[in-house]
């Protein structure tokens, strides 16, 4: 891939996920300083700061880029702040990448961090009868797990997925996350424990639904020319694609926070689903295909959703995800490990940090620095993520 189409990752950093209850800025700063230290680049050399916003921490969260920049010490860097629900982190990466590829800067810092409340995510306060996110809770009582469960049940009825398959995803990810110092839940679980946990949204149980977490993640991104000069080698981990496409009409899958789909009645044909199109755009941008992928970090908001992603990112055909799982293809040591970090299953979701954390994991895997969870010979990794209101992202990283 030509250097004017890709950027280098020189540093990655994370603050461990948990329920720490401290100011989100602390987590972002810890991650940022780790990423800068890994890159060997002083903060004052950063020319562009891309923040990923949190909407649950007041004004400082809405202008996260500036919040982190001020906390690191005003340095005159240019700044942006992005909110794109679960894809906020990828949007921040995309902003930094665009600046670098346009030649407007050489060194950018991307930071996302969150402090989260306990329990189900709920809409921000007030009575808003024109806000679908407010209305879905008010009129139907549809929480996020409602949607995950609708997808899971459909897998069972269409493709013969079983509750044991969903539990096996959780068991796999818990095992991987055991060895991850940044994971919140580092405890092996058995299928029996998963299947004995309370039913939240039939067929999904408590241990199969991702929690909400505090955490922070950061990346130092640079132009290829700067990276080669700074590191003194061409052997670099690079970002080859960042897809943040919107859905295409008619969107026929029920997506959060909607309670209706588009109508397909006036369309001659229906194209790929939204989640498929997010990955397709990333592959096209990177000029590779699913067969080139060594590992993937996908958004397992539920255990069952991980299976949907296997198909959506092209690791197998529709209806074959259960076979891939049962054959051990997606376990560390298998053909194409998925969520070697432990995934959301072991992290819980820290919204603006999560898409950045996915890339951090790929960077460490591609450098061979992932320790006991290392995917041997990893050359190309892909992330996939989807959130509310038509946001999704996929990032391809290679070495």
């Amino acid at each position: 891939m030509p250097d004017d189409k890709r950027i280098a990752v020189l540093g990655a950093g994370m603050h461990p996920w948990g329920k720490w209850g401290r100011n989100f800025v602390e987590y972002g700063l810890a991650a940022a300083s780790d990423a800068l230290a890994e890159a060997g680049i002083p903060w004052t050399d950063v020319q562009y700061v891309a923040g990923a916003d949190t909407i649950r921490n007041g004004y400082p969260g809405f202008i996260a880029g500036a919040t982190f920049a001020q906390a690191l010490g005003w340095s005159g860097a240019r700044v942006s702040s992005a909110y794109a629900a679960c894809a906020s982190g990828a949007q921040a990466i995309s902003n930094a990448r665009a600046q670098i590829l346009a030649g407007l800067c050489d060194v950018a810092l991307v930071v996302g961090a969150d402090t989260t409340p306990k329990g189900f995510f709920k809409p921000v306060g007030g009575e808003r009868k024109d806000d679908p996110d407010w209305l879905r809770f008010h009129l139907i009582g549809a929480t996020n797990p409602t949607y995950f469960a609708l997808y899971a049940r459909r897998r069972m009825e269409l493709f013969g997925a079983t509750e044991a398959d969903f539990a096996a995803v959780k068991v796999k990810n818990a095992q991987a996350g055991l060895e991850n110092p940044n994971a919140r839940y580092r405890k092996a679980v058995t299928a029996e424990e998963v299947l004995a946990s309370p039913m939240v949204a039939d067929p999904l149980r408590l241990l199969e639904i991702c929690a909400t977490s505090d955490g922070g993640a950061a990346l130092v991104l640079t132009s290829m020319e700067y990276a080669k000069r700074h590191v003194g080698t061409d052997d670099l981990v690079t970002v080859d694609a960042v897809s943040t496409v919107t859905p295409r009409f008619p969107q026929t899958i029920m997506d959060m926070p909607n309670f209706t789909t588009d109508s397909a009645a006036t369309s001659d044909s229906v194209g790929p689903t939204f989640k498929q199109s997010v990955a397709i755009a990333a592959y096209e941008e990177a000029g590779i295909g699913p067969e080139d992928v060594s590992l993937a970090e996908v958004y397992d908001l539920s255990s069952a959703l991980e299976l949907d992603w296997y198909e959506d990112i092209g690791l197998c055909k529709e209806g074959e995800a259960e076979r891939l799982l049962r054959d051990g293809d997606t376990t560390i040591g298998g053909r194409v490990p998925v969520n070697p970090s432990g995934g959301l299953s072991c992290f819980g979701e820290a919204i603006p940090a999560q898409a950045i954390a996915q890339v951090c994991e790929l960077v460490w895997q591609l450098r061979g620095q992932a320790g006991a969870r290392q995917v041997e010979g990893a050359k190309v990794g892909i992330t996939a993520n989807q959130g509310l209101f038509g946001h999704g992202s996929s990032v391809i990283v290679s070495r």
Partner: protein
Amino acid sequence: MPPVKTRLPAIEGWFTLDEEAPALLGSRCTSCGNFAFPKETFFCRNPECQGKEFAETPLSRTGKVWSYTNAGYQPPEPYVAADPYVPFAIAAVELAAEQMVVMGQMVPGVDVGSLSVGTEVELVLDTLYEDDEHEYVVWKWRPVGADRGSSNGKGQVDA
């Protein structure tokens, strides 16, 4: 006997208040014919269409279950839950003519074990929550041919 409460829609203009045969009120674009629910008011969401005028249209009253689940735990506000909380089933239902899927609660008493992808359901009005004087009603789905008793029909909806 307690006084009969007035039945009011939980949201104005989204469904007819015909207790016997209620219907969701969607819209059709007068240019391309695209269906939408809730009603489109500003700009057609078909990207190939520049339509800005929409006709109100009742949507199909019956459909087939696309998928289903339940709410085992009480949803957070602004959901107004009964005390004590009673879990309920939720279905996403495909409407054939409109080729769209509409989510709604199932009427009380429907267990997920009695549902399948493809189960035929029909639209009813049922109580979402109540205060001292009013029952606020919303659309719910009920398996076709099921006992009508689950929709309480205690009074008439005030238009």
